[in-house]
């Protein structure tokens, strides 16, 4: 197995990713408004996965905002970097919907599906009155596992896979594929950003 194949093979085992979809007009809503929404989602089981709790960190400067904690993932109306958005942070893949994911491409496709589904739900949420919209072209993908390298080779491989997944999800830049670039300092988790 050559080095590139080895890397792709390694990345196939990487489960822990963060995907953030930035809000289009963040000033329209306060993070606390998500608290009753997320509680109701747990009660009504609106997602096909186990949802457990709601955590409010809206008091923290540019923090994770308000969280909907599930077993496989944490969803948050996240305020980090002063850029509100929907953060989907996958931790496990135990749910029936996530069964059979075996490759990096599969996983990125699934990440986009899960995050976009919750974006759709929030945008349609009656209690938020249509005041939240997400820009599905402004995305951040982060490797949330420091066992994996954050070197250039990994970034290139991951960026290619991410572009393919975006194209399959119908996220294009006109007729062209969405551009993906690496952001952040080298000591931070490997993070890619569209646009």
């Amino acid at each position: 197995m050559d080095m590139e194949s080895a890397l792709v093979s390694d990345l196939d085992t990487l489960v822990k990713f963060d995907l953030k979809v930035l809000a289009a007009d963040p000033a329209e809503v306060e993070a606390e408004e998500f608290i009753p929404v997320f509680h109701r989602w747990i009660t009504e089981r609106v997602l096909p996965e186990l949802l457990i709790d709601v955590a409010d960190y809206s008091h923290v400067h540019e923090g994770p905002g308000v969280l909907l904690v599930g077993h496989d993932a944490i969803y948050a109306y996240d305020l980090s970097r002063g850029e509100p958005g929907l953060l989907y942070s996958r931790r496990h893949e135990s749910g029936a919907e996530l069964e059979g994911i075996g490759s990096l491409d599969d996983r990125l496709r699934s990440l986009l599906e899960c995050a976009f589904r919750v974006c759709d739900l929030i945008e349609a949420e009656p209690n938020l009155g249509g005041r939240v919209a997400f820009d599905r072209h402004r995305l951040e993908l982060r490797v949330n596992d420091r066992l994996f390298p954050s070197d250039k080779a990994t970034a290139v491989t991951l960026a290619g896979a991410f572009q393919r997944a975006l194209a399959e999800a119908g996220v294009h830049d006109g007729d062209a594929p969405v551009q993906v670039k690496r952001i952040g300092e080298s000591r931070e988790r490997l993070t890619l950003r569209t646009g």
Partner: protein
Amino acid sequence: MSQLTVDSTATWKQRLEGRVPPHLDEEIDIFETQIAQKRQGKIDDKVFAETRLRRGVYGQRYDNGQRHDGTASRALEYPCGDLTKGPNTVWDAPGMLRIKIPFGAMNGEQMEVLADLAEEYSDGIAHVTTRQDIQLHFIHIDDTPDIMRRLAAAGITTQEACGNSVRNVTACPMAGVCRDEPFDVSPYAHALTWFLLGHKDAQDFGRKFKIAFSGCAQHACGLANMHDLGAVAQVRPTGNGTSSGTERGFKVYVGGGLGAVPHQAKVLREFVREDELLPLAQAVCRVFGRLGEKRNRARARVKFLVAKLGIEEFTRLVDEELAILPPDDRWSAYLGDLSVTDEAPTRPAATLEAGERPDGFAEWLGSNVQRQRQPGYVAVAINLPLGDLTSTQLRALADTTRRYNGGHVRNTVEQNILLRNISEADLPALYAELREQGMGEPGASSLVDVTACPGTDTCKLGISASRGLAGELRKRIATSIKTTGVLADEAVKDLRIKVSGCFNSCGQHHVADIGFYGVSRKSDGRTIPHFQVILGGQWTENAGSYGLAVVAVPAKRIPEAVERIAGLYVTEREKGESFQSFIARVGKARIRQLLDDLTKLPTYLEDRTLYSDWGDPREYTIGDLGVGECAGEVVTAVEFGLSAAEREVFQGLLELDRGAAEAAAAKAYAAMLQAARALITTENIDIGTAPKEIVGEFRTRFYDTELFFDPYAGAKFANYLFRIHGDAETDSGEEAHRRIEEAQLFIEAAHACNQRISELQAARVA
């Protein structure tokens, strides 16, 4: 393609090989093996629970697989099925990891590791606790060995952070830079931490054991009086007047503690030399391990053993142990290098010169900066909202501190972070950096800096939303200060507010000027979250005295209660009168009268807002609107009786205020009898008023049947009644104080029992 330098298939154990201290590496390996064994059903549930607790791996709300959504309890179907990590604790349920930070000291590398772990395994938040620890929430147990390895590689352990063990050793965060201390207690706290960690004489306790160091007697920083073992630094002349030297030592206290019923510590030694401290602590551990209660957890802390034996007998037993302890080089070896905890300044000392300042600097300087003993240096407090900071902030703090003081901080028991050895001249630049990072809020250690335990947010024992209330109070106080409302008055600026989600006092409500702990009350067939208002506690002098409950107020009305109490103090205090003295002078009856209208409960249809808690939109109650009238009447009668019991205990408070210990104790006894009798009327309307009959009936109907048992504390509160019934009279003020506390808790337990009975009746009707 560039060459790959990291093998991503490695495990953290492989990656960190050689970097984890051997004794911790072995410990973590053992725990990982135990996790594997538990998965295979080869370890008993209770044994595994204590095993993980002793590694800091704690439970969290909803880990029993149930969640109440306000109308019904629903199952959380975790993928692990029946696999548990302790009794009624589901394997896959997220939990909390408590990370020991001895005397709150962290360096840059440690802050970065904690930031990494919070991002990868938790929710991106590091939470500073009231014991200077760091807690991470929503952790999966399978991840804990790797987390522990990554911490251990940075010199941090979670070993004995929970469970029946020696918990994080705390100390004054100003130790080493304080102007009042005779010497720096940090190296002693460090030495005792590592001496007792895993020590064979500290492995057989019935409950936890908490140790604190303080540099002086007059300030609160160390809170030595409320600890199982407290050490306050002292020096004394050496020799018999023939030499002019001094020697270091400690005044040592034992048997203090908050919890449901607080105890003031007793003096174990007026002075122990520094080389005698570790063996003395070891001897205390031996006595506690040998004679401390093991079966009844509610009476198992050292404070109960000291109260039972008396301090003289306890001291004698400690002396006996000391005499037979096998010598240990570690008792004094550390004295050869007391600089091990030193944090030398890295910037030159320089005074703050006049010049242009960033916005908000003056206010921040006034509230968050303290002069150090070392000229030209100051200590800077970061006022963390509810003790929380993000991974990004923690990492930024590591960078900032490296630039200004070599990369050192101390967590405080007020859930803040202290930067020491800051050159005064650097303050404007430091403030600008902290403000940029969202850590430049003024008001540290003031009224707005409200302390709170996790409460119902994540704690399984939480009754009310302590963090929700604390967050709301922070907002309102900040607004009042900005708009020059009553809470902006200089007189109340330095008062402390502390909130606990239940009677267990993790928020340290007993030692606040204004304290609260969560309780519940039933009204209109539903349950309403309340907080007991605690007044009269003393934060200074190492938590010099404890407050007492005045009245229970609905949670949503607590901010109004705070404004009224503060307003009364602002308008009616005498010149120079402290808040504590003011409360003693005006009396609790006056305060109760002041808050009386707030305790009147609207019906659900009149005002639903009171029927949910702060920050949680779910209805607080599990009551059913379809409860029959018959049951409702019975409940009403019980509530009436419990209300009478509350009046009785309040009168006991007033007796205590006027120094009538015997009368106060009698009221406490009468209150418990009243509450017990109220419950008995649900089954025997003809119950008489003779104490013997009430206690007998209570034992048969509520104790033997375990109806009265608290889900977590068991028979604890029932035993308060039996004990006072067997020994009703006392003229000791401290004992009377305790009995008043116990009566209050007994009544709370009666309320809870009544709710359970109502639910059972409703279920039967349904």
